[in-house]
């Protein structure tokens, strides 16, 4: 059923109790042309674009929990594309282009809000870095503006620009913003199922069947299943899945946490991030401040951040916004992020034939969801990564052609 004003009125007569389910719970079949492992935004999007743009008919998507219950539902929903390097700008800007049409494409409101993102500069070095990045952005067709202290102060009047680390300026991307993370998973799931994708929840992959270097199928908690091609789209368990297929990844899985404050009236109409004091904050449509910062330094699969990190998040926030210092934090949660040495993702082929992987998004995967899904769908369908995806192969860790965004552009969010 198409979501529309007419259907909204029609369903009002039955007190909105007869809406059909947005997606069903089909049984796992014996064989599929393509199986996507991982029901977050990236995986659901991959299944959707495979069915819609690449004509693949017989697709299953396996999710070990519930769809969108992993990192898709645990992030701070920030979207931007102002990365330094050409390879990253191409990938993340492809995503922003798709975000702009996503709600109408999926017939599902993902609440994409291009409220603008200010990345703060606190030192002469920071000003040089954002200037270099802005010029790089211009060359790559990514929008960027460099603001001085007065302009920042005028646009964000509540911010204290004269703290211990004064705000000297900012790089502003107006096309950046936020989206409703759950709606992204739900929208892609509903649209994928409309195109015939079987979405199998509570189905954990326990083994990958490989014969003569070619993937043949999967062992799952709902039985075994054959597949001509498999796309792994995990977060938090990339190395575990790779080990099942007999190869290793350049990934460390570490906890990243975020917090949400009690809801307040509108006070912050943009996204603020700072690498130097290290915090990022935006206000949700419910009025809560959504706050995050750095990841823990140690590996963990516990989905819990360390307690002392909360102080590292709140310190910079109250330094920048003394007005927030008496707010209560209502909720706190952790997710496990798969970090690569260069803070760029891994998209492409694996040592196993017909087995593809899209992982290693680290702390910044949400923003890339539609772009990542789109280029990975093409990779799976054609067997080769396209021009945007090809710099992000596993091989870059052996050739040395890293896409080093860790030190270069920003803390990857």
């Amino acid at each position, binding site marked *: 059923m198409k979501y529309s004003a007419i259907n909204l009125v029609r369903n009002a007569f039955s007190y909105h109790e007869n809406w059909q389910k947005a997606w069903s719970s089909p049984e796992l079949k014996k064989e599929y042309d393509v199986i996507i492992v991982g029901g977050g935004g990236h995986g659901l999007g991959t299944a959707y674009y495979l069915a819609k743009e690449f004509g693949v008919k017989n697709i299953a998507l396996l999710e070990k929990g519930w769809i969108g219950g992993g990192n898709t539902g645990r992030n701070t929903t920030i979207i931007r594309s102002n990365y330094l390097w050409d390879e990253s700008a191409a990938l993340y800007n492809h995503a922003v282009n798709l975000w702009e049409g996503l709600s109408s494409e999926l017939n599902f409101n993902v609440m994409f809000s291009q409220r603008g993102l200010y990345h703060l500069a606190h030192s002469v070095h920071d000003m040089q870095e954002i200037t270099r990045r802005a010029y790089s952005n211009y060359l790559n067709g990514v929008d960027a503006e460099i603001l001085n202290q007065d302009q920042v102060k005028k646009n964000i009047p509540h911010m204290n620009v004269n703290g211990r680390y004064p705000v000297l300026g900012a790089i502003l991307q107006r096309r950046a913003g936020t989206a409703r993370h759950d709606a992204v998973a739900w929208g892609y799931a509903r649209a994928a199922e409309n195109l015939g994708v079987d979405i199998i929840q509570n189905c954990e992959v326990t083994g990958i069947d490989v014969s003569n270097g070619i993937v043949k199928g999967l062992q799952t908690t709902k039985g075994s299943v054959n597949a001509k091609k498999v796309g792994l789209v995990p977060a938090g368990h990339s190395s575990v899945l790779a080990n099942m297929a007999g190869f290793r990844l350049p990934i460390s899985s570490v906890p990243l946490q975020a917090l949400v404050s009690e809801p307040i009236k509108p006070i912050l109409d943009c996204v603020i991030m700072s690498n130097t004091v290290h915090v990022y904050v935006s206000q949700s449509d419910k009025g809560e401040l959504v706050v995050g910062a750095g990841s823990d330094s140690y*590996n963990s699969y516990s989905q819990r951040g*360390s307690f002392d990190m909360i102080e590292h998040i709140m310190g910079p926030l109250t330094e920048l916004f003394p007005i927030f210092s008496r707010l209560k934090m209502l909720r706190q949660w952790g997710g496990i992020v798969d970090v690569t040495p260069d803070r760029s993702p891994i998209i492409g082929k694996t040592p196993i034939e017909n087995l593809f992987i899209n992982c290693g998004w680290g702390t910044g995967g949400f923003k890339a969801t539609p772009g990542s899904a789109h280029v990975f769908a093409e990779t799976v369908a054609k067997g080769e990564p396209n021009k945007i995806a090809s710099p992000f192969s596993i091989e870059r*860790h*052996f050739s040395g052609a890293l896409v080093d965004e860790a030190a270069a552009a920003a803390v990857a969010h």
Partner: protein
Amino acid sequence: MFVIKCPYCGDRDQTEFSCHGEAHIARPENPETLTDEEWGEYLFIRSNKKGIHYERWTHDHGCRRWFNVMRDTVSDEILVTYKMGEEKPKS
């Protein structure tokens, strides 16, 4: 948050320490003879174990010495801490 037993100083709060990744990765003896694959493997590929994991920590705000930790990455429980150069404990 952990209470970590530094092999030199005893039990201390986690905030005094920092973690520096997987332990027991030996630098190759003859790097100039390695292939790109072997060098990449040494530099970047990690076991990233779910379960018993060996890692290096430093006591930054204490004795500033390095040591190894055996920890369960599912429960975050620290099982053993031991000095650099000591034998890797069995999991």
